[in-house]
């Protein structure tokens, strides 16, 4: 056993086959991690190309048609290939069984299958990309998505296939959480990340099939012409919007809920203090999941739905603010009088608190009908969405990635470079997107390749910001890659955290726990507010 390096899940088996046929949740988590990082790079390149085009008012770098494809592909790649699988399938797969004291997820083969299904779906999306792209926007609204000559069918089919991957991950997690908790791991002793994943999994299982059938109908409409979205044939294009948002609104909570779970972990661990309001945070995750199914109509205030429906949807949308606010206050209360360790995971968690507050509050503006009618389809929407998705989910993903990196690979990254990178991303992000709130209020509509001279200064700022943010990500890619080979060896608990994954070696052995642990205390039992390793 103890020759040079202790046996762990990374070195016990070698060769490409041992990865492609693995049933180990940790390795599958890494397969997902590498996949989403690749697609994040692709989506990011599209984003930078867009910002370069928008640097100056005329559409000079790309033709307007190419620009339409750029924003569509940026959206579709980032949503379906990056953000939806990012936290649950990559970090969740790695951490969930460790958090509840299990040896693996309930269905390891299904877990591997879900990755292959994801890759097959992704291949269809890539095929669409190289065979003419898509210019409908990531929402594939009818009737345009039925009539455009671009490669809609492979992209939509790819999203359809990836939906099954998401369903299988969610199903696997629900069963794992119900049936594979270690002895003594009661529901209220589970780390809050697990609660976040549980709420996410419920949405994945309940909402994704509806997206599946919607996209299948869109394909049928385009290929066979069944007429159900075509007013000339007695169909209704607004029906498509209802179906699409019935999934896609809950889907934005698929993106944010696991992120909120990570923030709970990181804030508690790096302020060395018991989380404030454990049950409130746990139940607010379920509250958000439940409410998420009842608000889809707020995407459609100007689509011609009935005023009554719009009012009900608007009212219910305000409701989402309550559980989100509960979480926010509990996190801040956890920080209060904690022994705060400002290393990289905490920096990203603090960035999350700051940016998600802005994203969430502007969401309340947009939930108010009169304001939404004015701001609909402007850059204000773009800014709000990115404050929630990048300021929220991506910051949480980065917090989690930096937090669990030593556990995943047994190496520490350069803390100094991580801080520089966090700063670049934070500054670059705010430059890019805060300006877009202003552009939106001034009336700049989204999805245009050219714009009047008066918007040039703000667009210029935004474009410079995007390059600063890109520099931050490139630096991160560099130091993370470097750490894999030259990073200092991480001990098993570099943050002084109390959850179960920190009680085993870094990287963990293949079977996770030598002996099944018995749990007799809460997940965040910090005796005193001591420093790391204290």
């Amino acid at each position, binding site marked *: 056993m103890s020759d040079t390096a202790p046996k762990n899940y990374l070195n016990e088996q070698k060769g490409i086959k041992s990865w492609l046929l693995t049933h180990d949740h940790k390795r599958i988590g890494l397969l997902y991690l590498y996949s989403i990082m690749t697609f994040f790079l692709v989506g990011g390149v599209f984003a930078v190309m867009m910002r370069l085009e928008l640097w100056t008012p005329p559409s000079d770098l790309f033709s307007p048609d190419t620009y339409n494809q750029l924003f569509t592909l940026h959206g579709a790649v980032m949503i379906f290939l990056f953000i939806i699988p990012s936290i649950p399938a990559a970090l969740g797969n790695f951490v969930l069984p460790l958090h509840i004291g299990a040896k693996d997820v309930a269905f*390891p083969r299904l877990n591997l299958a879900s990755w292959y299904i994801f890759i097959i779906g992704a291949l269809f999306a890539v095929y669409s990309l190289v065979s003419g792209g898509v210019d409908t926007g990531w929402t594939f609204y009818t009737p345009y998505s039925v009539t455009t000559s671009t490669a809609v069918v492979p992209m939509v089919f790819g999203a359809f296939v990836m939906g099954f991957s998401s369903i299988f991950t969610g199903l696997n997690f629900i069963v794992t959480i119900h*049936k594979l908790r270690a002895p003594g791991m009661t529901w209220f002793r589970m780390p809050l990340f697990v609660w976040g994943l549980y709420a996410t999994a419920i949405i994945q299982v*309940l909402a994704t*099939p*509806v997206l599946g059938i919607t996209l299948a109908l869109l394909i049928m409409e385009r290929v*066979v012409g069944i007429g*159900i979205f075509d007013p000339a044939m*007695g169909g209704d294009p607004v029906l498509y919007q209802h179906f699409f948002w019935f999934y896609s609104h809950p889907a934005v909570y698929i993106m944010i809920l696991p992120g909120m779970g990570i923030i709970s972990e990181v804030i508690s661990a790096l302020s060395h203090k018991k989380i404030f309001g454990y049950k409130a945070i746990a139940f607010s995750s379920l509250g958000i999941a439940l409410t998420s199914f009842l608000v889809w109509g707020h995407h459609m205030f100007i689509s011609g739905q009935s005023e009554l429906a719009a009012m009900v949807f608007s009212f219910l949308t305000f409701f989402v603010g309550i559980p989100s606010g509960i979480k926010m206050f509990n996190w801040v209360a956890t920080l209060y009088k904690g022994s705060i360790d400002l290393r990289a995971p905490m920096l990203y968690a603090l960035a999350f608190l700051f940016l998600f507050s802005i994203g969430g509050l502007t969401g309340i503006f947009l939930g108010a009908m009169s304001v939404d009618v004015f701001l609909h389809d402007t850059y204000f929407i773009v800014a709000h969405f990115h404050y929630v998705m990048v300021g929220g989910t991506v910051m949480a993903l980065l917090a989690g990635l930096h937090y669990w990196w030593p556990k995943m690979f047994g190496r520490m990254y350069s803390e100094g470079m991580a801080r520089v990178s966090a700063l670049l991303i934070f500054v670059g992000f705010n430059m890019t997107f805060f300006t877009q709130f202003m552009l939106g209020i001034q009336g700049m509509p989204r999805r245009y390749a050219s714009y009047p001279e008066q918007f040039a200064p703000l667009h210029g700022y935004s474009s410079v910001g995007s390059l600063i943010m890109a520099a931050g990500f490139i630096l991160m890619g560099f130091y993370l890659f470097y750490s894999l080979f030259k990073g200092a060896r991480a001990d098993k608990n570099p943050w002084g955290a109390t959850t179960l994954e920190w009680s085993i070696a870094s990287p963990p052995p293949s079977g996770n726990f030598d002996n099944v642990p018995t749990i007799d205390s809460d997940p965040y039992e910090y005796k005193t507010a001591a420093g790391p390793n204290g």
Partner: protein
Amino acid sequence: MSHSSDHPANLAHHFTEVEQQQESAKLGMWLFLLTEILLFGGLFCFYAIFRAWNPDIFHNAHFHLDVVMGTLNTVVLITSSVTMALAIRSLQLDQKRAALWFLWSTLILAGIFLVVKYFEYAHKFHLGQLPGKYYTFQGIEGTNPHIFFSVYFLMTGLHGIHVIAGMSIIGWLIVKTSRNRFSSQYYTPVEMTGLYWHLVDLIWIFLFPMFYLIG
């Protein structure tokens, strides 16, 4: 595995006892069935909306479905659900021959269902009672009668795909059963397939009155 000494052969390494594994499989299967209901739920929604908008077309068009064939298929599918349940029961009693017999019956009944469906489809193809822009039939009053056939072919088509999937799984169960893979100690896959098959049956029980018996 260090704990293999008291680890039964059918128990995967990450479970501690057989019961835990069985319950996990059951919960997973029920969740899967839930996703199936939601998948069809979208189509049920479509049906409800288009029927509410076009009550006359749905009424006029439904006369062109063959109630006799529909009823026959309903009986066939319900019978297949019974034989599926009996197959599980036989395995619980360790009666392998009976289990095989019932599984074969289920498979054959599913085949009969598809054959009947084939004749129904072929007849409609012949008359041009097809979805959307391929609709050429002249005999139904009202605007956009093709909508009825769009919804009809979508729903029965998706159901038919589920029947075919079920048949291939049952075929696999037949192979496994004849190789003595299942017994009263371990028959989880058969039980799970049974749950799936009952759902496929149940969906048809909704589809039949919705299309054939619009009164």
